[in-house]
């Protein structure tokens, strides 16, 4: 597990620093899969020249596609969440580079089990690849843009 420099203490609380890792298929595998073209033979060939790669999306409910914006809010957080009935997918759609924080799903959906703080990891999202979380993968409530708003003197 990668856990940055370990915990730092302030009065009455602990700040756990998490070193952001590149999002690679093997390092991200405990949490989900990357969404991208290539890397293996295509799963789909139609009548034209296009080919496609299937994404193992699963849902117990009605699929929903949403465009979500996440504002810059700094790089600290205190909550994780997980979903039992869907493998959520996130596909970059522009804007600032961002980081996602995750923790591996438990083998069973035991609500008394939450990840240890030292098991939370963070990945820099490749703006050319999406990612699909496994069912029950814990994740921060937001993606975290890296950069605060900037002024544009020539706009």
């Amino acid at each position, binding site marked *: 597990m990668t856990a940055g420099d370990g915990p730092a203490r302030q009065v*009455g609380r602990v*700040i756990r620093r998490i070193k952001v890792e590149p999002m690679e298929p093997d390092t991200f595998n405990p949490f989900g899969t990357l969404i991208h073209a290539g890397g293996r033979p295509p799963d789909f060939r139609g009548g034209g020249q296009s080919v496609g790669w299937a994404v193992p999306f699963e849902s117990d409910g009605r699929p929903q596609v949403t465009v979500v914006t996440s504002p810059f809010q700094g790089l*600290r957080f*205190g909550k994780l*969440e997980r979903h039992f009935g869907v493998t*959520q997918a996130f596909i970059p759609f522009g804007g600032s580079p961002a980081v996602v924080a995750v923790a591996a799903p438990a083998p069973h959906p035991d609500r008394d089990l939450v990840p240890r*703080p030292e098991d939370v990891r963070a990945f820099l*999202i490749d703006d050319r690849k*999406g990612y699909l979380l496994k069912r029950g993968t814990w994740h921060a409530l937001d993606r975290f843009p890296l950069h*605060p708003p900037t002024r544009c003197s020539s706009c």
Partner: protein
Amino acid sequence: VARARPLSPPSADSVFVVLSDVETSEDLARGYAGSGGWLLSQEADYEAGSGVSFELVI
């Protein structure tokens, strides 16, 4: 020589297309609104529960 000038500042927001399901989204919205929910999702609040917060280090 003409210089290229940006038309607008770079966005500080990150934008994603999210593929989920209606039931999870509605359950989550009810949960965070305090009107039920949490049947399909679970939240772990480390800050409130144990005073732990996380800081991302680039």
